[in-house]
């Protein structure tokens, strides 16, 4: 996998004067530091090369087991994950050999030299029964989303099943990559996706309304009364375990039910289930995204209608509350989400209660379809993604003092989403730099260089430290 990357920042005064890239925050530069910002050294290069052969990569870190190539900013958790959240912080990345890339992951050099990056992890792989739909990078640092189907016979796996999967993802009206799919669209580079093709013996699923029983891979069923579509999750896990490479951790699992165009069945339990072939297809996509809100992010339904079974005294989910002040999402109160779900506030009714439970917006993707996710939901979704994905895929090793390294490099998950602040000896040179930093022009002596990689999205207003990661080097310049 090789991605073209835009040229990034040059860190010399002369180059600053000739580039369109964001400029340094000179206000924070001392005169001494300004003086040493000399032109780039040709041999080291200051610009990200647009070409890379991607050759030479050793297997590198095991994607699942090792932190080998992944800088760690404290523990990996954030958002809702259990392990104590560390967020960012100066990293003490483990060592590791480096080469241009590994297993299909290609790095770009910061100039003519091969980048001295740590091993980049293995390539994404869906196994022999899988089809890769999105390969965004090392699976140990991406959300790995696996989609299966139930009620698709072998002859339908390459046709109907794939049509339904692609409709979920790419429906141009209501799919993940439309504005209604935000924040997934913004963070699409953070997600690997594969479709696992598991044949069923019959092209249908059990229908609770008609009594039809079908012999399928995951015992899928549904009925119109509840519109609940379910599968046997244990069978799904077994299939994933059998078919996916053992080193790859699967974060999100979904199953398309081949229930025909009339049955709109779904559920958002441990596995997201949706009616892949429901017509109109945009509603199939929209419902899949809604159910993913439950399964992948623990969001509540925001329906405001009476249900005798509902407990209207508790609201643990991030997008509902029993507190009429809305303290749970106080940072979003009065925010104008336009285009979107309108003014964020505290609206009575939610999670099947007409009273006592409050929701953040008049409508949302977790309410009447279709619509956007509201801001508290989007915020939670982004935190969940960053709980899995750290901003830096790889970086120049920092386990020892580097003597005259020429260029330091961080490899970002997505340079269009992430920014880099480069600091030398605690002074910020730029808050929007690129992946490469030329240290050749630093004055003689020892220096501490820090790359703070951060996401300046306006869609997160709490715990923003979870959206950043730093690497620290000690360099010695002769």
């Amino acid at each position, binding site marked *: 996998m090789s991605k073209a990357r835009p040229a990034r920042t040059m860190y010399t005064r002369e180059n600053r004067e000739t580039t369109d890239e964001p400029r340094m925050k000179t206000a924070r530069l001392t005169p001494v530091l300004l003086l040493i910002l000399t032109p780039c050294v040709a041999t080291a290069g200051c610009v990200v090369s647009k070409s890379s052969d991607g050759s030479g990569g050793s297997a590198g870190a095991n994607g699942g087991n090792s932190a080998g190539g992944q800088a760690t900013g404290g523990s990996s958790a954030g958002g809702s994950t*259990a*392990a104590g959240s560390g967020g960012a912080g100066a990293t003490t990345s483990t060592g590791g050999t480096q080469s241009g890339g590994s297993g299909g992951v290609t790095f770009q050099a910061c100039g003519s030299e091969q980048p001295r990056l740590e091993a980049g992890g293995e390539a994404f792989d869906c196994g022999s029964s899988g089809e890769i739909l999105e390969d965004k990078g090392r699976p140990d640092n991406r959300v790995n989303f696996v989609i299966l189907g139930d009620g698709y016979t072998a002859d339908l796996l390459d046709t109907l099943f794939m049509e339904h999967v692609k409709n979920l993802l790419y429906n141009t009206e209501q799919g993940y990559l439309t*504005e209604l799919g935000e924040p997934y669209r913004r963070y699409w580079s953070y997600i690997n996706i594969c479709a696992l093709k598991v044949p069923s013996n019959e092209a249908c699923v059990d229908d609770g309304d008609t009594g039809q029983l079908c012999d399928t891979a995951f015992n899928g069923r549904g009925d119109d009364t509840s*519109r609940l579509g379910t599968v046997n999750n244990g069978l799904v896990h077994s299939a994933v375990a059998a078919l996916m490479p053992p080193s790859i951790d*699967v974060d999100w699992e979904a199953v398309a039910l081949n229930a025909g165009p009339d049955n709109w069945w779904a559920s958002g339990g441990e596995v997201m289930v949706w009616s892949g072939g429901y017509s109109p297809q945009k509603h199939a996509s929209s419902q899949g995204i809604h159910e993913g809100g439950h399964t992948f992010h*623990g969001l509540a339904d925001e329906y405001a209608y009476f249900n005798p*079974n509902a407990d209207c005294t508790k609201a643990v989910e991030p997008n509902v509350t029993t507190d009429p002040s809305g303290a749970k999402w106080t940072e979003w109160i009065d925010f104008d989400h336009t285009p*979107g779900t309108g003014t964020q506030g505290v609206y009575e009714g939610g999670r099947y209660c007409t009273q006592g439970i409050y929701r953040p917006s008049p409508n949302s993707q977790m309410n*009447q379809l*279709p619509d956007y996710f509201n801001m508290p939901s989007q915020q939670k979704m982004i935190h969940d993604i960053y709980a899995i994905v750290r901003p830096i895929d790889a970086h120049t090793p920092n386990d020892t003092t580097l003597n005259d390294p020429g260029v330091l490099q961080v490899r970002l998950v997505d340079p269009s989403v992430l920014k880099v602040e480069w600091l030398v000896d605690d002074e910020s040179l730029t808050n929007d730099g690129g992946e490469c930093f030329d240290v050749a022009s630093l004055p003689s002596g020892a220096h501490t260089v820090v790359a703070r990689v951060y996401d300046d999205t306006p869609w997160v207003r709490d715990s923003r430290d979870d959206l950043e990661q730093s690497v620290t080097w000690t360099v010695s310049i002769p």
Partner: protein
Amino acid sequence: MNKKHLKLLLGGALAALCCGFVGNLLAEPSDDSASPPWKAPSIAERVQAHPMTPARQRLSDQRRLFTRLDQALASRDFAEARRLLARHDSEFSETEAWRDWRAGYQALTDCLEHPGAESTAAGQRFVDEQRGSTLRRRVRRACLK
């Protein structure tokens, strides 16, 4: 539009009206999308993804229990985490569907509260045996790193 969809649309409209739902009808399309601009549908065109039935309620209750487990572990309230695990055992003992999650949260709780050889070994077993579980990465990170 098939008959069933028409029914859903009408149901959604009725639900919206009877509950005082006010849709965001004023949303403007974004201009930064490669896909066609999205126009907010009318209330009558919106639908609820699903009704609430006892079966769905039970599913929702389980999901909420695990959300509370997340919150307990994030605040390192291990007593609450263990109470919730016990509650899941007693209230959802028949549930096959979330069995790996129950085991995974048990491993997470043990590794975070009592890091050491024993919990690490249990975490390793989960990672080795529950290869299809979506909790695998979290257990790996909490127990094995």
